[in-house]
């Protein structure tokens, strides 16, 4: 009888632990801090010490390519078609890793053309995005309803709605991948989008010497560390991931020389408008020479990805 009780307690532990591990599409290898070693003779104790867990598959937050594109546009930079990857190069991407990386690249290109209201170019990039999303198995994120919405907003010149639809499609893609057994695909899409945005910012920052853009690039030091240490490090055994991580590591060597200083200022909250003004400040120290080296390295890595 005692033995039966122990077995039942053990099953209870497995049920609870499994829910913790499997819930929200988590994967034990992805999130070692939430993995519980199950002893079938003991019951998992209730949580008492406010344990911190990291967000499933997203302890990282990588800036959206559309957001970075918006910052570039607001800096006053003109549209530059030469910055974009050729949409017809989509046929060159035959393995899953290059397809995922370039799905991120084309997503950034699509966002860039949409921001500058280049409708015909946006349609070409949308087709490349759709093709690659089918190849990597997330066609549902870019289904006919989404494509039609993009087409309609392009025709109407409704930029705000267009960007909303595109961003939401990428969020849905993230959703699909988080609950699949191919989370690394989502990571590669994110890396591709980030690299393409850094390519835009780098080239324009070099040309214009815009402090806003140089500051934006410098602040990516933290994002890069997150991508390498918390995101890609989970999937190094998956095809193509280690190569990407090694390439990013070469960029990180340069970013390590960027200095960021932070100064706290008390925020102000406007309850009526549900708005808090964050007044703290970070200062980025990056020389022109270092900025140039970072941009050159980004170009080198991007060149390998889009070839």
């Amino acid at each position, binding site marked *: 009888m005692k033995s039966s009780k122990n077995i039942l307690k053990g099953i209870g532990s497995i049920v609870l632990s*499994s829910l913790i591990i499997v819930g929200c599409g988590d994967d034990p290898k992805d999130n070692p801090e939430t993995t519980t070693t199950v002893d079938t003779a003991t019951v998992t104790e209730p949580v008492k010490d406010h344990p911190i867990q990291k967000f499933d598959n997203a302890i990282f937050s990588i800036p959206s390519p559309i*957001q970075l594109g918006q910052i570039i546009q607001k800096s006053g930079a003109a549209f530059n078609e030469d910055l974009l990857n050729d949409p017809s190069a989509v046929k060159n991407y035959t393995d899953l890793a290059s397809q995922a990386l370039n799905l991120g690249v084309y997503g950034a290109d699509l966002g860039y053309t949409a921001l500058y209201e280049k409708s015909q170019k946006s349609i070409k990039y949308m087709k490349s995005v759709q093709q690659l999303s089918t190849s990597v198995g997330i066609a549902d994120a870019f289904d006919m309803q989404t494509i039609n919405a993009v087409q309609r907003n392009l025709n109407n010149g409704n930029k705000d709605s267009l960007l909303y639809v595109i961003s939401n499609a990428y*969020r849905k893609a993230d959703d699909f991948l988080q609950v699949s057994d191919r989370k690394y695909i989502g990571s590669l899409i994110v890396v591709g989008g980030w690299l393409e945005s850094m390519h835009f910012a780098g080239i324009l920052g070099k040309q214009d010497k815009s402090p806003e853009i140089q*500051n934006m690039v410098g602040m990516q030091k933290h994002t890069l560390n997150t991508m390498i240490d918390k995101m890609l490090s989970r999937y190094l055994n998956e095809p193509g991931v280690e190569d990407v991580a090694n390439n990013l590591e070469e960029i990180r060597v340069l970013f390590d020389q960027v200095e960021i200083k932070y100064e706290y200022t008390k925020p102000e909250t406007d309850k009526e408008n549900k708005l808090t003004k964050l007044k703290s400040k970070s200062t980025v120290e990056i020389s022109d020479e270092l900025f140039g080296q970072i941009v050159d390295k980004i170009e080198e890595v991007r060149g390998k990805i889009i070839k």
Partner: protein
Amino acid sequence: MKKLIAIFSFLLVAGITQVQAQCDTIANYCHKNNFTVDYISDGQNYRALLFAEQEAEFETTFFGGVTYRVAACTGFEQGNLIFRVKDELGNTLFDSMDQQNAPYWDFSVESTITVKIVTLLDPLEAPSGCATILIGFKQ
């Protein structure tokens, strides 16, 4: 004994399926209810299954000159999830508990900073749930 094991196995499968389905749909629900067309998603869903007093956290960069919207959901009722925004020194910049567990809040950012978003369940409202945070930025 075999019957009991079968019952627990069934509960295990049913529980996993239910939680999985819940997590899958909360992000879309959260987006639909808290984001309007003037706020663009950052393209990511931040999710964690929380029990009791567990907390979940992640770091993000808020760029200067941008207004962000952070939405927090668990389940299909608004206001069960508490979220806090902290700076890199650990100073609390915002706490949704001070705003009656507001399901979303906007942040206008003067200078680019790195922040940590921490979330936990309201113990009075939900003993467990799939915590979902979404971030959008104003066009």
